[in-house]
Protein backbone atom coordinates (compact mmCIF):
# COMPACT_ATOMS: atom_id res chain seq x y z
CA UNK A 1 0.00 0.00 0.00
CA UNK A 2 2.74 2.43 0.92
CA UNK A 3 4.32 3.87 -2.18
CA UNK A 4 6.21 6.59 -0.30
CA UNK A 5 4.20 9.61 -1.42
CA UNK A 6 5.47 11.62 1.54
CA UNK A 7 8.79 10.24 2.78
CA UNK A 8 10.73 11.52 5.78
CA UNK A 9 14.11 10.13 6.80
CA UNK A 10 16.21 10.99 9.84
CA UNK A 11 14.45 14.30 10.58
CA UNK A 12 16.07 16.45 13.30
CA UNK A 13 14.41 19.62 14.58
CA UNK A 14 15.52 21.97 17.37
CA UNK A 15 13.45 24.46 19.36
CA UNK A 16 16.21 26.89 20.31
CA UNK A 17 18.58 24.62 22.28
CA UNK A 18 16.07 21.86 22.77
CA UNK A 19 16.52 18.85 20.50
CA UNK A 20 12.84 18.18 19.79
CA UNK A 21 12.95 15.54 17.04
CA UNK A 22 15.73 12.93 17.00
CA UNK A 23 15.86 11.38 13.57
CA UNK A 24 12.21 10.77 12.71
CA UNK A 25 11.30 8.39 9.87
CA UNK A 26 7.82 8.53 8.39
CA UNK A 27 6.41 7.31 5.13
CA UNK A 28 2.92 7.95 3.88
CA UNK A 29 1.42 6.29 0.81
CA UNK A 30 -0.83 8.01 -1.67
CA UNK A 31 -4.47 8.19 -0.52
CA UNK A 32 -3.70 6.61 2.85
CA UNK A 33 -4.87 7.82 6.24
CA UNK A 34 -1.88 7.60 8.58
CA UNK A 35 -2.22 8.36 12.27
CA UNK A 36 0.55 9.51 14.57
CA UNK A 37 -0.27 8.85 18.20
CA UNK A 38 1.71 9.35 21.38
CA UNK A 39 1.67 11.11 24.72
CA UNK A 40 1.73 14.88 25.17
CA UNK A 41 5.13 16.38 24.41
CA UNK A 42 6.23 13.49 22.19
CA UNK A 43 6.83 15.95 19.36
CA UNK A 44 3.81 15.21 17.15
CA UNK A 45 2.91 18.84 16.55
CA UNK A 46 6.57 19.73 16.06
CA UNK A 47 6.69 17.14 13.30
CA UNK A 48 3.61 18.68 11.63
CA UNK A 49 5.03 22.23 11.78
CA UNK A 50 8.35 20.96 10.39
CA UNK A 51 6.68 19.23 7.42
CA UNK A 52 4.68 22.40 6.70
CA UNK A 53 7.92 24.37 6.55
CA UNK A 54 7.32 26.65 9.53
CA UNK A 55 10.03 25.14 11.76
CA UNK A 56 13.58 25.03 10.36
CA UNK A 57 15.01 21.58 9.72
CA UNK A 58 18.38 20.76 11.29
CA UNK A 59 18.94 17.46 9.48
CA UNK A 60 17.32 14.69 7.47
CA UNK A 61 15.49 14.48 4.17
CA UNK A 62 11.87 15.25 3.33
CA UNK A 63 10.64 13.99 -0.02
CA UNK A 64 7.24 14.59 -1.58
CA UNK A 65 6.41 12.57 -4.66
CA UNK A 66 10.12 11.83 -5.03
CA UNK A 67 11.35 15.43 -4.92
CA UNK A 68 12.82 17.30 -1.92
CA UNK A 69 10.38 19.60 -0.11
CA UNK A 70 11.06 23.36 -0.36
CA UNK A 71 11.85 25.19 2.87
CA UNK A 72 9.29 27.99 2.95
CA UNK A 73 5.65 27.38 3.95
CA UNK A 74 4.11 29.15 0.96
CA UNK A 75 6.03 26.94 -1.50
CA UNK A 76 5.04 23.77 0.36
CA UNK A 77 1.35 24.75 0.19
CA UNK A 78 1.80 25.39 -3.52
CA UNK A 79 2.96 21.76 -3.90
CA UNK A 80 -0.26 20.56 -2.30
CA UNK A 81 0.58 19.94 1.37
CA UNK A 82 -1.78 21.78 3.68
CA UNK A 83 -1.65 21.94 7.49
CA UNK A 84 -4.63 22.35 9.81
CA UNK A 85 -2.78 23.18 13.02
CA UNK A 86 -3.68 22.42 16.60
CA UNK A 87 -6.27 24.87 18.02
CA UNK A 88 -7.40 25.66 14.42
CA UNK A 89 -5.67 29.09 14.19
CA UNK A 90 -8.50 30.63 12.16
CA UNK A 91 -8.32 34.28 11.12
CA UNK A 92 -10.73 35.18 13.90
CA UNK A 93 -11.42 38.79 12.84
CA UNK A 94 -12.17 37.73 9.26
CA UNK A 95 -15.55 36.40 8.22
CA UNK A 96 -16.09 32.74 7.44
CA UNK A 97 -16.21 33.57 3.75
CA UNK A 98 -12.95 35.53 3.93
CA UNK A 99 -11.28 32.61 5.72
CA UNK A 100 -12.26 30.36 2.81
CA UNK A 101 -10.98 32.95 0.32
CA UNK A 102 -7.66 32.90 2.20
CA UNK A 103 -7.55 29.14 1.78
CA UNK A 104 -7.74 29.63 -1.99
CA UNK A 105 -5.51 32.73 -2.06
CA UNK A 106 -2.98 31.22 -4.50
CA UNK A 107 -5.62 30.16 -6.99
CA UNK A 108 -6.90 32.27 -9.86
CA UNK A 109 -9.60 29.96 -11.30
CA UNK A 110 -12.77 31.77 -10.20
CA UNK A 111 -15.17 29.01 -11.22
CA UNK A 112 -13.03 26.34 -9.59
CA UNK A 113 -12.96 28.31 -6.34
CA UNK A 114 -16.74 28.77 -6.42
CA UNK A 115 -17.20 25.05 -7.10
CA UNK A 116 -14.89 24.13 -4.24
CA UNK A 117 -16.80 26.42 -1.89
CA UNK A 118 -19.96 24.47 -2.77
CA UNK A 119 -18.01 21.25 -2.17
CA UNK A 120 -16.98 22.22 1.35
CA UNK A 121 -20.54 23.40 2.07
CA UNK A 122 -21.77 19.96 0.99
CA UNK A 123 -19.29 18.47 3.47
CA UNK A 124 -20.15 20.94 6.26
CA UNK A 125 -23.64 22.37 5.53
CA UNK A 126 -23.76 24.39 8.77
CA UNK A 127 -20.96 26.64 7.48
CA UNK A 128 -23.12 27.95 4.66
CA UNK A 129 -25.51 29.64 7.08
CA UNK A 130 -22.65 31.48 8.76
CA UNK A 131 -20.95 32.93 5.67
CA UNK A 132 -20.68 36.53 6.85
CA UNK A 133 -20.10 35.79 10.52
CA UNK A 134 -16.67 36.43 12.02
CA UNK A 135 -14.75 33.18 12.48
CA UNK A 136 -14.02 34.04 16.12
CA UNK A 137 -17.73 33.91 16.94
CA UNK A 138 -18.26 30.32 15.73
CA UNK A 139 -18.60 27.39 18.13
CA UNK A 140 -15.64 25.04 18.65
CA UNK A 141 -17.03 22.39 16.31
CA UNK A 142 -17.85 24.94 13.60
CA UNK A 143 -14.38 26.42 13.95
CA UNK A 144 -12.80 23.00 13.38
CA UNK A 145 -14.97 22.43 10.31
CA UNK A 146 -13.99 25.84 8.98
CA UNK A 147 -10.30 25.12 9.62
CA UNK A 148 -10.50 21.92 7.56
CA UNK A 149 -12.65 23.61 4.91
CA UNK A 150 -10.13 26.45 4.64
CA UNK A 151 -7.31 23.95 4.08
CA UNK A 152 -9.39 22.08 1.46
CA UNK A 153 -9.86 25.32 -0.50
CA UNK A 154 -6.22 25.09 -1.60
CA UNK A 155 -7.05 21.71 -3.24
CA UNK A 156 -4.37 19.86 -1.28
CA UNK A 157 -3.17 16.38 -2.15
CA UNK A 158 -1.94 15.89 1.43
CA UNK A 159 -3.86 17.16 4.44
CA UNK A 160 -1.99 17.35 7.76
CA UNK A 161 -4.50 17.40 10.64
CA UNK A 162 -3.15 18.25 14.09
CA UNK A 163 -5.51 17.36 16.95
CA UNK A 164 -8.74 18.08 15.09
CA UNK A 165 -10.89 16.66 17.90
CA UNK A 166 -9.36 18.85 20.62
CA UNK A 167 -12.08 20.35 22.78
CA UNK A 168 -14.96 18.85 20.81
CA UNK A 169 -17.94 16.95 22.21
CA UNK A 170 -17.91 13.16 21.47
CA UNK A 171 -20.75 13.36 18.93
CA UNK A 172 -19.11 16.24 17.09
CA UNK A 173 -15.82 14.31 17.06
CA UNK A 174 -17.52 11.29 15.53
CA UNK A 175 -19.06 13.43 12.76
CA UNK A 176 -15.68 15.02 12.17
CA UNK A 177 -13.96 11.66 11.75
CA UNK A 178 -16.66 10.65 9.25
CA UNK A 179 -15.82 13.67 7.14
CA UNK A 180 -12.12 12.78 7.26
CA UNK A 181 -13.04 9.46 5.61
CA UNK A 182 -15.07 11.34 2.99
CA UNK A 183 -12.15 13.65 2.28
CA UNK A 184 -9.91 10.63 1.74
CA UNK A 185 -12.49 9.15 -0.62
CA UNK A 186 -12.13 12.30 -2.73
CA UNK A 187 -8.48 11.38 -3.25
CA UNK A 188 -6.75 13.32 -0.47
CA UNK A 189 -3.96 11.73 1.58
CA UNK A 190 -4.41 12.38 5.31
CA UNK A 191 -1.82 12.50 8.09
CA UNK A 192 -3.64 12.65 11.42
CA UNK A 193 -2.14 13.54 14.80
CA UNK A 194 -4.50 12.75 17.66
CA UNK A 195 -4.74 12.56 21.44
CA UNK A 196 -7.88 10.62 20.75
CA UNK A 197 -5.71 7.75 19.51
CA UNK A 198 -8.33 5.05 19.65
CA UNK A 199 -10.76 6.74 17.26
CA UNK A 200 -7.93 7.98 15.05
CA UNK A 201 -6.53 4.49 14.54
CA UNK A 202 -9.98 3.12 13.80
CA UNK A 203 -10.24 5.20 10.63
CA UNK A 204 -6.55 4.88 9.71
CA UNK A 205 -4.72 2.49 7.41
CA UNK A 206 -1.50 2.65 9.35
CA UNK A 207 -0.30 4.15 12.58
CA UNK A 208 2.91 5.44 14.08
CA UNK A 209 3.60 5.64 17.78
CA UNK A 210 5.79 8.55 18.79
CA UNK A 211 7.83 8.75 21.97
CA UNK A 212 9.79 11.83 23.11
CA UNK A 213 11.17 12.90 19.75
CA UNK A 214 11.43 9.40 18.23
CA UNK A 215 9.23 6.95 16.36
CA UNK A 216 8.73 3.97 18.65
CA UNK A 217 6.57 1.76 16.47
CA UNK A 218 4.89 1.68 13.11
CA UNK A 219 2.35 -0.87 11.97
CA UNK A 220 -1.02 -1.27 10.27
CA UNK A 221 -3.62 0.49 12.42
CA UNK A 222 -5.51 -2.71 13.23
CA UNK A 223 -2.33 -4.29 14.58
CA UNK A 224 -1.63 -1.32 16.85
CA UNK A 225 -5.21 -1.42 18.12
CA UNK A 226 -4.76 -5.11 18.95
CA UNK A 227 -1.40 -4.79 20.70
CA UNK A 228 -2.05 -4.96 24.48
CA UNK A 229 1.12 -3.03 25.39
CA UNK A 230 0.30 -0.20 23.01
CA UNK A 231 -3.30 -0.21 24.20
CA UNK A 232 -2.13 0.14 27.77
CA UNK A 233 0.47 2.84 27.17
CA UNK A 234 -1.07 5.05 24.55
CA UNK A 235 -4.71 4.25 24.09
CA UNK A 236 -5.77 4.39 27.72
CA UNK A 237 -6.66 0.76 28.31
Amino acid at each position, binding site marked *: MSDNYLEIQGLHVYYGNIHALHGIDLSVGKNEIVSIVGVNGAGKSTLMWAI*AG*VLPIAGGTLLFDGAPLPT*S*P*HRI*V*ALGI*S*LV*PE*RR*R*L*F*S*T*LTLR*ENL*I*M*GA*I*RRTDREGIAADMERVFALYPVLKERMSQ*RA*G*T*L*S*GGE*QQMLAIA*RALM*SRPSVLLLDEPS*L*GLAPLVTEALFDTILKIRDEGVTVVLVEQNAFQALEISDRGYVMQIGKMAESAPAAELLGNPLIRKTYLGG
Partner: protein
Amino acid sequence: MFLQTLVTGLSMGGIYSLMAVGYSLIFSILSFSNFAHGAVIMLSAYIGLALATKAHLGFGLVVTGSVVGAGVLSVLNEKFAYAALRRRRAPSLYLMISAMGCSMFLENMVYATIGSRFYPFPAFFGRQIVTVGGSSLSLLDLFAFIVSIGAIVALHLFITRTKMGIAIRAGVDDMTMCSLMGVNTDRLISLVFFLAGAFAGIAGIFLGIRYFVYPTMGWVTNKAYIAAVIGGLGSLPGAMVGGLILGVLETLISTYVSSVLRDVFSFTVLVALLIYLPNGLMGAETEEKV
Protein backbone atom coordinates in the same frame (compact mmCIF):
# COMPACT_ATOMS: atom_id res chain seq x y z
CA MET B 1 -14.77 82.50 11.26
CA PHE B 2 -15.73 79.20 12.88
CA LEU B 3 -16.30 77.49 9.54
CA GLN B 4 -12.92 78.73 8.35
CA THR B 5 -11.22 77.39 11.47
CA LEU B 6 -13.05 74.11 11.10
CA VAL B 7 -11.93 73.65 7.49
CA THR B 8 -8.32 74.51 8.36
CA GLY B 9 -8.55 72.00 11.21
CA LEU B 10 -10.03 69.33 8.98
CA SER B 11 -7.34 69.91 6.37
CA MET B 12 -4.55 69.59 8.95
CA GLY B 13 -6.46 66.65 10.40
CA GLY B 14 -6.57 65.02 6.96
CA ILE B 15 -2.78 65.23 6.76
CA TYR B 16 -2.45 63.80 10.28
CA SER B 17 -4.82 61.03 9.21
CA LEU B 18 -2.66 60.15 6.19
CA MET B 19 0.39 59.85 8.41
CA ALA B 20 -1.50 58.02 11.15
CA VAL B 21 -2.83 55.48 8.63
CA GLY B 22 0.76 54.69 7.59
CA TYR B 23 1.75 54.27 11.22
CA SER B 24 -1.24 52.10 11.94
CA LEU B 25 -0.76 49.87 8.90
CA ILE B 26 2.79 49.03 9.92
CA PHE B 27 1.94 48.78 13.58
CA SER B 28 -0.86 46.34 12.89
CA ILE B 29 1.26 43.99 10.80
CA LEU B 30 4.61 44.09 12.66
CA SER B 31 3.49 45.38 16.12
CA PHE B 32 6.01 48.19 16.40
CA SER B 33 5.92 51.96 16.00
CA ASN B 34 7.84 52.82 12.86
CA PHE B 35 9.64 55.98 13.92
CA ALA B 36 11.33 56.14 10.50
CA HIS B 37 7.95 57.06 8.98
CA GLY B 38 8.67 60.76 9.52
CA ALA B 39 11.93 60.49 7.57
CA VAL B 40 10.04 58.92 4.65
CA ILE B 41 7.59 61.84 4.75
CA MET B 42 10.48 64.31 4.77
CA LEU B 43 12.23 62.60 1.84
CA SER B 44 8.97 62.46 -0.12
CA ALA B 45 8.65 66.23 0.27
CA TYR B 46 12.18 66.65 -1.13
CA ILE B 47 11.29 64.35 -4.04
CA GLY B 48 8.19 66.44 -4.72
CA LEU B 49 10.21 69.64 -4.42
CA ALA B 50 12.80 68.40 -6.92
CA LEU B 51 10.09 67.34 -9.37
CA ALA B 52 8.36 70.73 -9.05
CA THR B 53 11.37 73.06 -9.10
CA LYS B 54 13.97 71.16 -11.16
CA ALA B 55 11.77 69.17 -13.55
CA HIS B 56 8.97 71.81 -13.57
CA LEU B 57 6.25 69.17 -13.46
CA GLY B 58 2.62 69.98 -12.76
CA PHE B 59 0.87 69.23 -9.47
CA GLY B 60 -0.54 65.84 -10.51
CA LEU B 61 2.83 64.47 -11.62
CA VAL B 62 4.57 65.89 -8.55
CA VAL B 63 2.15 64.04 -6.28
CA THR B 64 2.42 60.83 -8.32
CA GLY B 65 6.22 60.96 -8.30
CA SER B 66 6.34 61.63 -4.61
CA VAL B 67 3.83 58.86 -3.82
CA VAL B 68 5.74 56.25 -5.82
CA GLY B 69 9.11 57.48 -4.54
CA ALA B 70 8.01 57.39 -0.92
CA GLY B 71 6.46 53.94 -1.42
CA VAL B 72 9.74 52.58 -2.76
CA LEU B 73 11.76 54.28 0.03
CA SER B 74 9.47 52.75 2.60
CA VAL B 75 9.93 49.24 1.13
CA LEU B 76 13.72 49.73 1.09
CA ASN B 77 13.54 50.94 4.69
CA GLU B 78 11.91 47.62 5.64
CA LYS B 79 14.32 45.49 3.61
CA PHE B 80 17.46 47.13 5.03
CA ALA B 81 16.45 47.93 8.58
CA TYR B 82 13.75 45.48 9.68
CA ALA B 83 13.74 42.33 7.51
CA ALA B 84 16.82 40.77 9.11
CA LEU B 85 15.50 41.43 12.62
CA ARG B 86 12.11 40.08 11.66
CA ARG B 87 13.60 36.80 10.36
CA ARG B 88 15.47 36.35 13.65
CA ARG B 89 12.18 36.88 15.46
CA ALA B 90 13.63 39.85 17.35
CA PRO B 91 11.38 41.54 19.92
CA SER B 92 9.54 44.59 18.55
CA LEU B 93 11.66 46.90 20.72
CA TYR B 94 14.64 46.09 18.46
CA LEU B 95 12.65 47.06 15.39
CA MET B 96 11.70 50.33 17.04
CA ILE B 97 15.33 51.13 17.88
CA SER B 98 16.37 50.29 14.34
CA ALA B 99 13.63 52.65 13.12
CA MET B 100 14.95 55.48 15.28
CA GLY B 101 18.43 54.86 13.90
CA CYS B 102 17.11 55.02 10.35
CA SER B 103 15.31 58.23 11.08
CA MET B 104 18.47 59.91 12.44
CA PHE B 105 20.59 58.54 9.61
CA LEU B 106 18.25 59.84 6.90
CA GLU B 107 17.82 63.25 8.50
CA ASN B 108 21.55 63.73 8.86
CA MET B 109 22.13 62.50 5.31
CA VAL B 110 19.88 65.34 4.16
CA TYR B 111 21.74 67.84 6.36
CA ALA B 112 25.07 66.64 4.97
CA THR B 113 24.06 66.65 1.30
CA ILE B 114 21.20 69.08 0.69
CA GLY B 115 21.74 71.25 3.75
CA SER B 116 19.51 72.76 6.42
CA ARG B 117 17.82 75.42 4.30
CA PHE B 118 14.04 75.78 4.34
CA TYR B 119 12.71 75.45 0.79
CA PRO B 120 9.27 76.69 -0.25
CA PHE B 121 7.16 74.83 -2.83
CA PRO B 122 6.11 76.76 -5.94
CA ALA B 123 2.68 78.29 -5.38
CA PHE B 124 0.45 75.56 -6.82
CA PHE B 125 -2.68 77.02 -5.29
CA GLY B 126 -1.65 80.62 -4.75
CA ARG B 127 -3.95 82.20 -2.22
CA GLN B 128 -7.10 81.13 -4.02
CA ILE B 129 -10.18 81.38 -1.92
CA VAL B 130 -13.61 79.81 -2.08
CA THR B 131 -16.46 81.66 -0.42
CA VAL B 132 -19.06 79.50 1.29
CA GLY B 133 -21.87 81.09 3.28
CA GLY B 134 -19.92 84.27 3.93
CA SER B 135 -16.74 82.49 5.11
CA SER B 136 -13.68 82.49 2.89
CA LEU B 137 -12.01 79.10 2.78
CA SER B 138 -8.56 78.37 1.37
CA LEU B 139 -8.63 76.20 -1.74
CA LEU B 140 -5.51 74.38 -0.54
CA ASP B 141 -7.24 73.46 2.73
CA LEU B 142 -10.32 72.13 0.95
CA PHE B 143 -8.22 70.23 -1.55
CA ALA B 144 -5.94 68.71 1.11
CA PHE B 145 -8.96 67.58 3.10
CA ILE B 146 -10.75 66.02 0.12
CA VAL B 147 -7.65 64.23 -1.20
CA SER B 148 -6.75 62.88 2.26
CA ILE B 149 -10.20 61.51 2.92
CA GLY B 150 -10.49 60.18 -0.64
CA ALA B 151 -7.18 58.31 -0.30
CA ILE B 152 -8.16 56.80 3.03
CA VAL B 153 -11.57 55.70 1.73
CA ALA B 154 -9.84 54.11 -1.28
CA LEU B 155 -7.45 52.29 1.06
CA HIS B 156 -10.37 51.12 3.17
CA LEU B 157 -12.11 49.69 0.08
CA PHE B 158 -8.87 48.01 -1.01
CA ILE B 159 -8.38 46.42 2.41
CA THR B 160 -11.97 45.24 2.79
CA ARG B 161 -12.94 44.29 -0.76
CA THR B 162 -9.93 42.86 -2.60
CA LYS B 163 -8.12 39.54 -2.22
CA MET B 164 -4.87 41.32 -1.42
CA GLY B 165 -6.67 43.38 1.20
CA ILE B 166 -8.07 40.23 2.80
CA ALA B 167 -4.55 38.77 2.83
CA ILE B 168 -3.26 41.88 4.63
CA ARG B 169 -5.97 41.56 7.27
CA ALA B 170 -5.26 37.84 7.58
CA GLY B 171 -1.56 38.66 8.09
CA VAL B 172 -2.49 41.12 10.82
CA ASP B 173 -4.48 38.35 12.47
CA ASP B 174 -1.90 35.53 12.19
CA MET B 175 1.18 35.89 10.00
CA THR B 176 2.26 32.25 10.30
CA MET B 177 -1.13 30.97 9.20
CA CYS B 178 -1.09 33.48 6.37
CA SER B 179 2.12 31.86 5.08
CA LEU B 180 0.50 28.43 5.51
CA MET B 181 -2.28 29.57 3.16
CA GLY B 182 0.39 30.09 0.51
CA VAL B 183 1.05 33.81 0.93
CA ASN B 184 4.64 34.96 0.49
CA THR B 185 4.75 36.99 3.70
CA ASP B 186 7.90 38.92 2.73
CA ARG B 187 6.01 40.26 -0.25
CA LEU B 188 2.91 40.95 1.83
CA ILE B 189 4.98 43.02 4.27
CA SER B 190 6.57 44.90 1.36
CA LEU B 191 3.10 45.69 0.04
CA VAL B 192 2.07 47.11 3.42
CA PHE B 193 5.21 49.24 3.59
CA PHE B 194 4.58 50.47 0.05
CA LEU B 195 1.04 51.54 0.98
CA ALA B 196 2.24 53.26 4.15
CA GLY B 197 4.97 55.00 2.13
CA ALA B 198 2.51 56.11 -0.55
CA PHE B 199 0.36 57.76 2.13
CA ALA B 200 3.48 59.37 3.57
CA GLY B 201 4.12 60.73 0.05
CA ILE B 202 0.77 62.52 -0.11
CA ALA B 203 1.23 63.87 3.42
CA GLY B 204 4.76 65.07 2.61
CA ILE B 205 3.59 67.08 -0.39
CA PHE B 206 0.77 68.79 1.49
CA LEU B 207 3.01 69.56 4.45
CA GLY B 208 5.68 70.96 2.12
CA ILE B 209 3.14 73.18 0.35
CA ARG B 210 1.54 74.37 3.57
CA TYR B 211 4.83 75.09 5.36
CA PHE B 212 8.36 74.48 4.04
CA VAL B 213 10.59 71.54 3.13
CA TYR B 214 13.41 71.04 5.66
CA PRO B 215 15.32 68.12 7.22
CA THR B 216 13.37 67.84 10.49
CA MET B 217 9.91 68.33 9.00
CA GLY B 218 9.24 64.62 9.63
CA TRP B 219 9.03 65.27 13.37
CA VAL B 220 5.41 66.21 12.80
CA THR B 221 4.78 62.43 12.81
CA ASN B 222 4.74 62.78 16.61
CA LYS B 223 1.30 64.21 15.97
CA ALA B 224 0.40 61.34 13.70
CA TYR B 225 1.39 58.99 16.49
CA ILE B 226 -0.95 60.87 18.84
CA ALA B 227 -3.70 60.65 16.21
CA ALA B 228 -3.14 56.90 15.84
CA VAL B 229 -3.31 56.46 19.63
CA ILE B 230 -6.53 58.52 19.84
CA GLY B 231 -8.12 56.28 17.22
CA GLY B 232 -6.55 53.09 18.58
CA LEU B 233 -3.20 51.85 17.24
CA GLY B 234 -3.68 49.35 14.45
CA SER B 235 -7.18 50.49 13.49
CA LEU B 236 -7.49 52.23 10.11
CA PRO B 237 -10.86 53.94 10.68
CA GLY B 238 -9.47 54.87 14.10
CA ALA B 239 -6.41 56.48 12.54
CA MET B 240 -8.60 58.56 10.24
CA VAL B 241 -10.98 59.70 12.96
CA GLY B 242 -8.09 60.30 15.39
CA GLY B 243 -6.28 62.48 12.84
CA LEU B 244 -9.35 64.58 12.12
CA ILE B 245 -10.19 65.03 15.81
CA LEU B 246 -6.62 66.08 16.60
CA GLY B 247 -6.42 68.49 13.64
CA VAL B 248 -9.69 70.20 14.53
CA LEU B 249 -8.95 70.41 18.28
CA GLU B 250 -5.47 71.82 17.65
CA THR B 251 -6.78 74.47 15.27
CA LEU B 252 -9.56 75.43 17.69
CA ILE B 253 -7.02 75.74 20.53
CA SER B 254 -4.67 77.89 18.40
CA THR B 255 -7.46 80.13 17.22
CA TYR B 256 -9.52 80.61 20.37
CA VAL B 257 -7.01 80.00 23.18
CA SER B 258 -3.35 80.35 22.23
CA SER B 259 -1.18 78.88 19.50
CA VAL B 260 1.60 78.45 22.10
CA LEU B 261 -0.57 75.98 23.98
CA ARG B 262 -1.32 73.87 20.89
CA ASP B 263 1.42 71.26 21.35
CA VAL B 264 1.08 71.29 25.14
CA PHE B 265 -2.54 70.39 24.60
CA SER B 266 -1.81 67.62 22.08
CA PHE B 267 0.75 65.88 24.25
CA THR B 268 -1.49 66.22 27.30
CA VAL B 269 -4.18 64.44 25.32
CA LEU B 270 -1.67 61.69 24.48
CA VAL B 271 -0.65 61.16 28.11
CA ALA B 272 -4.26 61.19 29.29
CA LEU B 273 -5.25 58.67 26.61
CA LEU B 274 -2.38 56.30 27.34
CA ILE B 275 -3.39 56.30 31.00
CA TYR B 276 -7.17 56.15 30.74
CA LEU B 277 -7.97 54.75 27.30
CA PRO B 278 -4.88 52.87 26.05
CA ASN B 279 -6.86 51.11 23.31
CA GLY B 280 -8.05 54.43 21.88
CA LEU B 281 -11.50 55.00 20.45
CA MET B 282 -11.48 52.05 18.06
CA GLY B 283 -8.59 49.93 19.34
CA ALA B 284 -8.31 46.36 18.05
CA GLU B 285 -10.62 44.02 19.90
CA THR B 286 -9.43 40.48 20.44
CA GLU B 287 -11.60 37.45 20.49
CA GLU B 288 -10.31 33.95 20.84
CA LYS B 289 -12.12 30.73 21.41
CA VAL B 290 -10.68 27.35 22.23
